[in-house]
């Protein structure tokens, strides 16, 4: 699971009001090399909840020097975009789980794939 995806996911457990962001408990993390595409990263930045991204990168020990706030004029700041690219697309949670911040319910991640299915009684 990549952090771009994680940034958009929320807990949908019945009755939960503040299910975002999901906490990440990773037992295996991989960092792959993915071709840097500055246009794509620039396009995605406005879609992100920035603090949730920083928090997730922190949880995985992959934050490095990602700033707490968005840099102004990021579209032309290649160095900044490369940092964002790395945490969005290169860092992957292979094994672990996502946890609802309110209910504590865990959604397992195995072979990089989160399982978000709820049981009948949670729906």
């Amino acid at each position, binding site marked *: 699971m990549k952090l771009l995806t994680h940034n958009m996911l*929320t807990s949908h457990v019945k009755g939960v009001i503040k299910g975002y962001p999901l906490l990440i408990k990773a037992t295996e993390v991989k960092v792959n090399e993915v071709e840097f595409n500055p246009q794509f990263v620039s396009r995605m930045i406005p879609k992100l909840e920035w603090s949730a991204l920083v928090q997730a990168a922190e949880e995985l020990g992959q934050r490095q020097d990602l700033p707490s706030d968005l840099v102004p004029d990021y579209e032309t700041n290649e160095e900044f975009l490369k940092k964002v690219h790395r945490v969005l697309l290169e860092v992957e949670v292979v094994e672990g789980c996502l946890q609802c911040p309110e209910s504590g319910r865990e959604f397992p991640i195995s072979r990089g794939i989160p399982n978000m299915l709820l049981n009948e009684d949670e729906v």
Partner: protein
Amino acid sequence: MAATNSRSCLQYLIHLAHDHLDFRLPEIKALLSLRGKPFTPSENFKEKCPFWCLEGLSEEDVCSVMARSVCAKSAFELWGHGQTHSELRTSLLNYPMENMTPFMRKDSTYRINVYTFNKTLEFADRIKRIDALDYLPFEGTVSLKSPQHVFCLLEDYGTDPNNIPEHPDYIYFGRWIADGQRELIRSHSVKNRHFIGNTSMEAGLSFIMTNHAKVKENDLVFDPFVGTGSLLVACSQFGAYVCGTDIDYNTIHGKGRSSRKNQKWRGVDENIRANLRQYGTEKMYLDVMVSDASKPVWRRTAVFDAIITDPPYGIRESTRRTGSNKDMTKPCDGDYAESHVPVSQEYHLSDIFSDLLNFSAHHLVMGGRLVYWLPVYRPEYCEEMVPLHPCLRLISNCEQTLSSHTSRRLITMEKVKEPELPNSRILDPMPACTGQKIWKQLG
């Protein structure tokens, strides 16, 4: 007349493949729309004919369309046309000389092709036709192997293979600009793909869906019923970053029984990510997840540029959702085709589509498109059965017949309005409504 003026009145001839006829116009329109250009056919436009003449375009527009289209075979700068060779000649002699001469220079090479639709021509007849064009001011040398300029004489002998006329109905002559992407149909054929399933979408239709959805480079695309990822493969080919969900754990993980004829179980390299790797687009792979599409997992402000999907019909794969007893076991194809669709299945199916439209209204960018297949029981089909939503505009509805009683329709919708916020839980999507009539009242 100044050269620039005459070039802006140029007409382009698109030669289309005689396949998926209903799907062609929406594809070309969508691709022109990506260029901000309208579809402007010349007079006497016939949609079912394999030759379309378009106006108001630049050569770059045409090249862009051809770089994406799987419905179009080739595009030409139209120099002349007519119902007879005599009319063609008159038309060609009226074509501005200054538009011809750049491609006829003494130091250049060229060749002339002859193409006949719905008729086979003997080699000798082809040569005769080429020779008959000697009134054109060609000054260069003929090169059959690698000419700098290619010209084409195209003859249309109608669309009835049982009634081929002696003389063509219509004739065109033009300078070849570009070929379409029909080669992708072969190169991305499901036959050679590492990971397939019973319902993997054929390559041609996958690319047509991508084009109907106006997917462009650096888009973010989502498939809520991703299966084996055929649609993601097509979207990634055109530069989109892709993600998907499916309720079936085994399919998402690439486990379980293989759909290949002589293979029992799926191998290690059989999953969606491996499919993208096979075609060199792994870098466009975001994620797939096991998830129930009727219970979306996305935060309210998460938006996609396009949602492209082939929902389960209840025929080859059962329709399922968590927390429901209404599991449909699939009837065998023969039964479904002959019998009336059972009421409980209809209810179930309409939930899928109302949920899908509702989800799209919330999770598409403004102007983003939803493209999906709607299964149809033909004897009872009417236009009112196509689901509507007040935030989505219906763009096209193309039928692919599956049997005498069943077909599926490729529906394209575009988001034109933001949904009104629910007054309570900001992180929940709006509750899905069921039934056609509610949407029509709201709309």
